[in-house]
């Protein structure tokens, strides 16, 4: 995707990954806490598109994100793009980093951010980082 002038738009059925770098955000039942979807300190939520890359490449992107901080990569929360757009959020793809997009359009007040985060978490799947 990064060799194009502008990134392709995000399709409704695309999966988006939110990498989880804090251990308490994943639950044992393969679900994720809504805390992982609260957009702060930025007004947007940073995600990685699954489209066009392998599972191995996806995890590598997550590991790169973790290494840059540095932090531990515990897993990722996968959510379909349609789940966000149904909530009147927008998904804006970016050229860099690879396969990156921002979920934008969050309300400014905390309670409404929380209800959107709960809605996303309700349909997201948590994938723990595979053992090496």
């Amino acid at each position, binding site marked *: 995707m990064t060799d194009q002038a502008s990134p392709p738009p995000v399709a409704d059925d695309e999966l988006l990954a939110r*990498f989880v*770098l*804090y*251990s*308490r*955000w994943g*639950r044992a039942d393969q*679900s994720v*806490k*809504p*805390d992982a979807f*609260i*957009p*702060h*300190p*930025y007004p947007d939520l*940073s995600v990685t598109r699954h489209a066009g890359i392998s599972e191995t490449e996806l995890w590598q992107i997550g590991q790169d*994100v*973790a290494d840059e*901080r540095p*932090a531990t990569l515990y897993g990722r929360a996968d959510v379909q793009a349609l789940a966000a757009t149904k909530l009147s959020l927008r998904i804006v793809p970016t050229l860099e980093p690879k396969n990156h997009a921002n979920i934008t359009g969050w309300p400014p007040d*905390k*309670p*409404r951010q*929380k*209800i959107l*985060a*709960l*809605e996303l*978490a*309700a*349909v997201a799947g948590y994938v723990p980082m595979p053992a090496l």
Partner: protein
Amino acid sequence: MICGILLLGEAWMNNPVMKSDPTVQNKVLDELDALTKECSSPNWDGYGAVPVQSQTIKDAKRFVEALPLGTPTPSAGAEPDGHVTLEWYHSSRRTLSVSVSPDGELHYAALLGASKAWGTEPFFGDVPSSILLLISRVDAK
């Protein structure tokens, strides 16, 4: 049904003797202690989170200790804006999350089947009845 739940909530609120079971509270209080270590530095979530302040942890503990006897125990967590979260999770669509903010407010959101609720309450040491009602609805059999 709703009236019954409301009455139960009021009974919890109005009886200072009926506090939550200390042995049941221990788990979540331990989780809150762990947050003190895990979330007290900037960027604890890898995305630029602000540190959770010790006063916010103390307020969250006061909230937990103010829960009436028999109240289901929440799990504790933290959000990137430095809020402490207390979560009652039954399933993906029966869940309540309460954020204890550094400025003493309680921001909450709940999914209850097809219904949802969200809002803000001040925290003065007692658990607001609106939040007790939501806890009972999440826990309803």
